[in-house]
Structure formats: structure tokens, C-alpha cells
């Protein structure tokens, strides 16, 4: 498959003529106008360097475009637009505008590492997906994805107390993304269990809400981690040429 397969057959490049004849040939119907817009001039020469400065992106330069990652990819199987091989190509070429067309789905990588398992060049495409999603947010191209909101809420709990408690993570996430905790499927799930096993379930939920699980003596580790996170965030912003606050 040619490297440019996707650019060439975008719906917006298709034209339709009900009756059109050129040089005596009937070309009525749909056809692609890709030939009109081939020249790319808006390269971002720093793109690969920026992505590889973020955690996970370090090995992107090794990619030889074999496509094994996309072929193995879990998300690609349900959404053909999810194409790690293609995004790695765009990043290496500096084709930022083209990459931005897919900015809303890159975060959907489920970290299954099927790509990493298949990659013959140790690129760790899973890491590249995470670095790219991170880059999109730091540069302000996308708002924080639900995944980032989840990761942040979860990690803050770990950094603060050393442990997490899943119902708290869940409540925090639903609040952070403005979703209701009374979605029918969630209600069905919980009530099904409570019907069978009311006491145990309610006691456990209640207990864990009041007595948050904690790692004893975590204070110093917590401070050390928080300090380190600040350091990493500053380094990430510097690598992307952003000011101290970054573009959010």
C-alpha cells in the first residue's frame, strides 16, 4: 500500500459530476482530485525532536515503516483511521498539519503493546502514541482527553497517599468529565450485586470511603515524587519551547 494512501482518498477531495465528458471519455460519477493539492510546504522540522523529547517517544527515529504496528493494533481493528505507522511517518517527515487531522483519536491507544510486540525495530509505538497525545495537549491542539483526566486523578491519589481506592478514582473521574454516576448500565451493575450480596458490598464501600487506604510512612516519598513531577513538567515544556505555564 502506498505511504500516502490516506491523504489521497479523503472525502473532501472527492468530486462528483453527474454528466461529464473529457476528451470524449465519459467520466461521470465520483473521482478524487488529489492531484491538485500535492505540494506540502508547511513542514515543522522540529516535530520528531519534540515528540522524542517526551517520555515514550525516544525511539521514533528507528522506524522503517514496515506497518507491523498498525497491522497488530487493537484500536485499528475497530477504527481504520487509527494508524500508528502513518502517524510515525508524519512525525518523522514533520507533517504537522496532516497529523493534526487525527488529533482527536490519538489518545485512544489502549496501551495493549501489540505494536511493541510486533515491531522489529524496537520503536515502542505504544510509547510514541502516548508521547504524541501528550504533545497535542501541551501544545494546546486538543483539550485534556478523558484518558489524561483519568491518569491525573489516579496518579495524584498515588502520589498523595501511596495507594488508590477504586470507587474514589471512579467518582473523581465521573465528576472531572461531567458524567453522571447514574448511567443505566452502572446502576444495573451495582444493583445486581447488591441484590445478591448487600451487606458485604455496602460495608466495604462505606469503610473505604471513610478510611482511605494509605501507605504508612509515605510522606517523604510523596514529597520526593511531587518535586520530581515538577521537574519533569518543566523539562517537557522547555523541550517544546513553551513558556513556564505551557499552552493549555
Amino acid at each position: 500500500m502506498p505511504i500516502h494512501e490516506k491523504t489521497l482518498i479523503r472525502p473532501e477531495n472527492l468530486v462528483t459530476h453527474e454528466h461529464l465528458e473529457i476528451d470524449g471519455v465519459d467520466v461521470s460519477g465520483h473521482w478524487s482530485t488529489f492531484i491538485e493539492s500535492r505540494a506540502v510546504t508547511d513542514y515543522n522540522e522540529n516535530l520528531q525532536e519534540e515528540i522524542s523529547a517526551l517520555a515514550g517517544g525516544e525511539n521514533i527515529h528507528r522506524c522503517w515503516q514496515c506497518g507491523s504496528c498498525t497491522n497488530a493494533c487493537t484500536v485499528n481493528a475497530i477504527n481504520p483511521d487509527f494508524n500508528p505507522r502513518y502517524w510515525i511517518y508524519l512525525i518523522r517527515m514533520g507533517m504537522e498539519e496532516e497529523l493534526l487531522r487525527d488529533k482527536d483519536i490519538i489518545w485512544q491507544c489502549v496501551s495493549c503493546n501489540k505494536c511493541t510486540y510486533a515491531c522489529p525495530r524496537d520503536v515502542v509505538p505504544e510509547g510514541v502514541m502516548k508521547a504524541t497525545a501528550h504533545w497535542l495537549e501541551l501544545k494546546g491542539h486538543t483539550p485534556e482527553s478523558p484518558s489524561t483526566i483519568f491518569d491525573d486523578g489516579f496518579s495524584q491519589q498515588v502520589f498523595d497517599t501511596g495507594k488508590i481506592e477504586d470507587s474514589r478514582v471512579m467518582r473523581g473521574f465521573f465528576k472531572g468529565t461531567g458524567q453522571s454516576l447514574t448511567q443505566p448500565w452502572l446502576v444495573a451493575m451495582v444493583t445486581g450485586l447488591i441484590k445478591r450480596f448487600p451487606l458485604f458490598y455496602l460495608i466495604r464501600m462505606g469503610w473505604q470511603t471513610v478510611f482511605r487506604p494509605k501507605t504508612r510512612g509515605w510522606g517523604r516519598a510523596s514529597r520526593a515524587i511531587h518535586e520530581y513531577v515538577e521537574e519533569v513538567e518543566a523539562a517537557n515544556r522547555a523541550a517544546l519551547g513553551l513558556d513556564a505555564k505551557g499552552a493549555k
Partner: protein
Amino acid sequence: MPKDLKDPSLKKVAYYPGCALEGTGHAYNKSTKAVGKELGLDLVELKNWNCCGAMEVKNIDPNIQTYLSARNLSIAEDMGFDTVMAPCNGCYHNLKKAEYDLANDEGSKEVNARLSGKAGHATYAPGKVETIHSLDWIKRAIGEEELSKRVKNSLKGLKIANYYGCMYSRPRHIFPEKDKGEGSESTSKPHFMDDLLAAAGAENVDYPLKTACCGGAHTLSDSDTSTKLVLNLLTTAEACGADVIATECPTCHTGLEMHQIRAEKVLGRKTNVKILYFTQLLGMALGLSAGKVGVNENFSDSRALLKEKGLG
């Protein structure tokens, strides 16, 4: 100590349950401990352990995740253990990854030393503690032969699809002991759970999605994707003739249960295959009651099926 114990050093190991086993995965914790007790194996829980960072902390920074696991490994070492058993795929994976990164990546090593120093505990050096999964533990400490002798209530007639998920075998490089031929675990077609359940009398179906992904990393943040992935796991298991999907990870297990219900409520796709931890199945085969292995705590209600098969 039973005579034919294969690896006697595994009779007593350090135990790292992890956060999920204290929350939604409680039944896995309960059934793992119950099976261990029944088989005469000792678990000594790590003192003051911390979260391994699951699938999330690495997205803030992978070195912090390495530190979190290194702290747990240093606790095991302090307690005098050279083996730690983690039943959760996420914990198991992260401890393995930390072991690999500390041996091969200067950056992780440096950050681990710095954070350990500031936190005031010993810096874990790789090679001191081996991390094993609950599957390795039972397989290596007891083995199929001994296990089959201990079975009081055979799983005969129960058709099982064994589901291992992603973190148990990928990426390959953090599991140097796998893919070593005869007797070792395979990363492409794992079989340790199949082996143990077969020894307990179950009939394993040929399940092609053993190592497919359940979307666990985005089970809440991208529920539609997870539901599609899980529905595929469930319908394929049913097409293979399975009554039960056996799991060995709390995230996979809860994901399968949640999205089975979600697929029914949101997509109108109902499936009947039941979801049980492999330790719940082994426990019942060893003669423990369904209650003792926490079957009531599962969202997936398997009571009628177990009754029909004369289990629990």
C-alpha cells in the same frame, strides 16, 4: 512439605496484592489466599506496600512508575524474600518492567536512586528479587500432577476459555524467562492457566483471543471502545463453546464483567458466558465452597451454572 513439591523455595513467598485486590478485585485476593492455604503454601504480605502505578502513572512519567515498583521490591528484600508473588497482571507487569529498566536504563536507575534517597529507604538494585505471577506460583510450587491429586470436586464438564490479557506477556523483553521452550510460558500462546485448570478436570476450549486486549486502560475513559473489545471477547468465547471465561487479572476481570452488562444495556447485545477468576475455579475444585472463594462478589452471576455443574 509435600514430597513432590517442584520448587520448595516457593512454598513461602512475599505477597503483593496491590490496590485492585483490596477493592473491586477482592474476590481474587480472597480466592488466591484460600487456594494457597488449601495447598499448604504461605503468603507473607509486603509491609507498607504502595500502588504500582497501574496503567496510569507511567503516562505522567515512566520513571516514577519504576520507582513505585522498586520501593515494593526493596521491601521484599528487607523482609528477607527473594521472590514476590503478584496476582494482578498490572502489578506483575510493572514489577517486571522495573526490574528490566533498572538493569538496562540509566535514566530510571538514576531517578530511582534519587527518589529512594529522598524517601529514606534502601535503593533497590536489580537481580535481588524475582517477581512471579500467581499462575507461576501454583504451577511451580505445586505443579499439575500434585494439583490433580488434591482435586476433590473435579471441574469435569465445565468448558473454559482461558483469558490472559495484555500485561501478562507483553512486551516480551520484560519477561526473559518466557518463550524458553519446554516447560516455560509462551508469550504468544500462554498456557499456564490452561494447564492448571485442565489438571483440575476442566475442558479448555481452543480460545484464539487469549492475549487480545479488553481495553482495560480506557475502561471508563473510552467506554465505547472497551465495550466493543469486550463484546468480541465474550462472543468469541461463546462461539468456541465456553461456559466460563477464566481470568487471572482484576482489571481484565472487572472490565469483562462491566462491559458485558454495558453491552447489554447500551448495545442490546446480551451474552451468557460467565466470568470467574481461575483461583475461584481452582478453589472450588479443591473442595472449597463458592462463598469461600468469593463467587458472590462477582458482578457476573455464575451461581446457577456452578450449581448445574455440581460445583461450589
